[in-house]
């Protein structure tokens, strides 16, 4: 039972009035002035008699009448009866949204959440239907629209707190879609959550359909204490030609009490190697820097861990480290080129850190197939290409290699077809801009990965470089000009061939044709060209739950036989997920820990390990007002359904549900009348008794 105007229940305090009248006021109302209490004070004080209620029936009648009248004004309505009656008038579609973000693992929140869900299911009538939806950063339907309460309860039991962060938007959208598809007249959404502030970023564009009531069931505690491990900082250094990693781990104390001497452990490949101690004031952070260690191999697993508290999931932070593999670059020069012919190029590449570059410089006529097998990028610096070399390079690019051709003044390419036809443009005659105004780079495709870092203002100025000579070219059909000179001539052309790319630079990479090598943008420009050609991507040390794990796979080579290597992802909980290559090779991270991607082939490479961590925003257990979510989702505060929906049925039903106040008022009036009769009778009796005395 609920009340429409529960504030009226405060009037129940008025029940004390008759009692006070009986007990106190009745004797103290009349003050009689008496000359002396000398004799009265000598008479023993009979407190029992003073307080004894003489007319119990009268008092009870008065109290009952008052209580009934107050209850009538509080406008009670019976929800259960209403639901039972709904079988005839308006059945309900109940959507129970249960938050299973990892903050629900705090203390006994999950037990209380499932209890609240079972309570909501218990109120589902025979004509109603209910759905159970679990949500964290995403939402999933555990059981959809069924009147079977046992199945609904079973669905609730299957849930448990996950590793995701709280996001109300997806859950409310899903609830809205279930509600909008329901034919039932009443639609209620019950949101069971700890209502973390971090989970609500405004209304998120979520708006429940009209007529859908959202009832929040908050189960969070006001006073919480939680310490979480913050993302680590990995600092790399080289010592004795070995790659060393220094890990700095930290904690954030979200509680109101300081933590002192908390033990923080660094685990490498599952083994605790170092331990530090850390203290943090309330709502502040602290960190510990561990001694540097050398990663034993690729995909070395690291974890920074503290002792478990009420919310254990955020007490560990995972990462992976690997020794840095240099990117092998092969610079091919023309035969008889001077020793410093590729000076600027090699110097620029020698400064590479992420990744480091392993540079080999050779004459183009000495290139062998073996050279190309071990290299990632080949740079033809002002070198004429022979037929055989062109074919080898064509095959190299088709396999996924990168080729940068700096035409210079001597660069040529044999007129070939087939596999060797990889040139982005046919080189033409040199253009001499030494007389008059030198050429400048006029238009750059900032959408291309090469120039993307230079997109922002003051991120590199290419217009300062002057070009004195370059080659006129005729771009291929499938090539893309990504840089032009100020006269519109192509400066840099890209063409994708098979799994690889080919870049054609129409000028030189030394001071012969331009002064770009003297400009500050030269080094990043060269680095970007090389890493783009090598399809190099710096793998993050960890991902966050909810991110998508993308297992890279070589694109099919045109004309080649399609060979799909099946791969398996081993999740932290030990589950095996097969990526058969039919669909996109992606997997959403749902657990905290290490995912392992294995290729199921004899010559497969070593498995790839990805560290997965929870969203640390969830560690902040600060709660919000549930009505904020209600207001955002319904466009107004309060959980009642919007007026105007199912007007006829709702009005009748509401009237039926609230009719009880009539009976209460009537009963109160009847009892008042009875009280008058009894009161008169009692006073008559007492009056005659007095006269007789």
């Amino acid at each position, binding site marked *: 039972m609920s009340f429409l105007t529960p504030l009226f229940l405060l009037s129940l305090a008025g029940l004390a009035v008759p009692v006070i009248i009986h007990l106190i006021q009745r*004797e103290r109302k009349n*003050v009689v*002035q008496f000359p002396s209490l*000398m*004799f009265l004070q000598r008479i023993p*004080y*009979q407190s029992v008699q003073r307080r004894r209620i003489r007319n119990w029936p009268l008092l009870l009648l008065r109290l009952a009448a008052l209580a009934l009248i107050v209850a009538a004004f509080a406008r009670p309505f019976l929800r259960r009866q209403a639901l039972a009656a709904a079988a005839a008038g308006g059945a309900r579609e109940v959507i129970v949204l249960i938050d299973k973000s990892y903050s629900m693992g705090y203390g006994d929140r999950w037990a209380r959440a499932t209890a609240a869900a079972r309570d909501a299911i218990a109120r589902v009538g025979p004509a109603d239907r209910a759905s159970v939806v679990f949500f964290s950063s995403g939402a999933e339907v555990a059981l959809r629209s069924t009147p079977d309460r046992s199945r609904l309860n079973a669905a609730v039991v299957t849930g448990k707190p996950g590793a995701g962060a709280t996001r109300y938007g997806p859950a409310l959208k899903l609830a809205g879609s279930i509600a909008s598809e329901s034919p039932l007249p009443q639609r209620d959404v019950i949101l069971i959550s700890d209502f973390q502030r971090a989970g609500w970023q405004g209304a998120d564009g979520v708006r429940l359909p009209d007529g859908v009531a959202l009832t929040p069931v908050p189960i969070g505690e006001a006073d919480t204490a939680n310490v979480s491990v913050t993302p680590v900082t990995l600092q790399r250094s080289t010592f004795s030609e070995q790659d060393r990693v220094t890990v700095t781990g930290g904690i954030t104390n979200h509680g109101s009490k300081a933590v002192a001497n908390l033990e923080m452990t660094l685990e490498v490949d599952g083994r605790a190697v170092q331990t530090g101690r850390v203290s943090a004031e309330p709502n502040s952070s602290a960190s510990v820097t561990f001694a540097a260690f050398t990663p034993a191999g690729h995909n070395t697993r690291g974890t920074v861990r503290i002792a478990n508290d009420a919310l254990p999931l955020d007490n560990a932070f995972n990462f992976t480290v690997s020794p840095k593999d240099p990117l092998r670059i092969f610079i091919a020069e023309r035969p008889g080129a001077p020793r410093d012919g590729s000076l600027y190029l090699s110097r620029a590449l020698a400064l590479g850190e992420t990744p480091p570059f392993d540079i080999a410089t050779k004459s183009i006529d000495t290139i062998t197939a073996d050279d190309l097998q071990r290299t990632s990028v080949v740079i033809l610096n002002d070198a004429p290409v022979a037929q055989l070399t062109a074919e080898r390079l064509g095959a190299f690019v088709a396999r996924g290699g990168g080729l940068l051709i700096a035409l210079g003044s001597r660069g040529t390419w044999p007129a070939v077809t087939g596999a060797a036809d990889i040139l982005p443009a046919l080189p033409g005659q040199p253009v001499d801009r030494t007389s008059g105004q030198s050429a400048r780079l006029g238009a750059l495709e900032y959408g291309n990965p090469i120039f993307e870092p230079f997109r922002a203002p003051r991120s590199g100025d290419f217009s300062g470089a002057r070009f004195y000579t370059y080659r006129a070219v005729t771009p291929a059909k499938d090539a893309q000009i990504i840089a032009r000179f100020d006269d519109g001539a192509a400066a840099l052309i890209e063409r994708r061939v098979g799994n690889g790319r080919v870049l054609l630079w129409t000028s030189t990479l030394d001071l012969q044709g331009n002064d770009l090598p003297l400009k500050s943008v030269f080094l990043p420009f060269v680095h970007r060209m090389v890493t783009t050609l090598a399809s190099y991507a710096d793998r993050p040390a960890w991902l966050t739950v909810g991110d998508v794990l993308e297992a890279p796979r070589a694109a099919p080579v045109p004309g080649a036989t399609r060979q799909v290597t099946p791969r398996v992802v081993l999740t932290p909980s030990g589950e095996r997920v097969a990526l058969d290559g039919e669909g996109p090779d992606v997997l959403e991270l749902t657990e905290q820990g290490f995912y392992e991607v294995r290729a199921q082939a004899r010559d497969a490479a070593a498995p790839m390990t990805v560290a997965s961590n929870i969203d640390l925003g969830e560690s902040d257990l600060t709660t919000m007002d549930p009505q904020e979510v209600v207001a955002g989702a319904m466009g107004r505060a309060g959980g009642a359904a919007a007026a105007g929906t199912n007007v006829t049925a709702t009005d009748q039903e509401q009237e039926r549900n609230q009719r009880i106040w009539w009976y209460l008022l009537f009963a109160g009036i009847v009892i008042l009348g009875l009280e008058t009769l009894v009161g008169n009778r009692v006073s008559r009796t007492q009056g005659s008794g*007095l006269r007789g005395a």
Partner: protein
Amino acid sequence: MLNTTSIPGARFVDPVVLSRIGNLELVARHVVDGFINGMHRSPYFGASVDFAEHRGYVAGDDIRRVDWRLYARTDRFYIKEYEADTNANFSVLLDVSKSMGFGSRGITKLEYAKMLSGCLTYLVHKQRDRVGMIAFDSDIVEHVPPSAKHMDIVLHTLDRLKPGGPGSLRAPLHKMAEHFGRRGLLVLISDLYEDPDAVLEAVGPLRFRGNDIIVFHLLDPAELDFTFDTPSAFEDLETGEQIPVVPDALAEQYRSLVRAHIDALQERFSGSRIDYFLVNTSSPLDHALFSYLSSRDRFARVR
């Protein structure tokens, strides 16, 4: 009875009351000392025409008072003593404590006491005795010394009196005992809300000095019968203290306590040869005077 004229104090000598009292004068002449000049026996022996007794001569006696005839018969010196007929001092000792302001029947005890005082004073004054009065609560409030010319002052003073503060008998009565140098007739009018022994102890010094004391114990019918029926908070007029009282449960015990108090007072006073009269303010004023004068007469005959 409560007719008030413009003459101050006149209402205390209500003609109706006085007409009834006038019929009592013959009785009063034999009862009250000094009611009528010549009939008032002085407590002093002195010069007058009424022989009292003989006594042996002692050195220092006036030889003119030696009864020579008796000397002739007995050869011894005897002195003749006469009862002195003289004007007596009459004072009303009126309790004006706050409890005297109580009244349940339209007249308070103090008003009743004022009228009683007025009547007595008037009667005494008519005998040409010296009249005075003292009003007191816990201390002496008003003091009119006894004098044959103070009748008007006494009536004026009575008219002004209002209930004062908390009352006490001991301190003011002891102070009065110090004050009265000459023996006289003292009428104490009070509600006597003190322990009987304490009352007697307060009155004692006055009695020891030879004063003739008459006590009027004034009580309202409500104080005597306790006719309340509604449970109420009873507030002490003098202290302001309140206690909840259920009259039905307490009335009988109260009445027995009051009776015991009155009996104790009566016993104590009679033991000390002090005249005590309980006056119910619901009874007519002349009843009180009549019962008083009657009892005085009875006592006088006994003596």
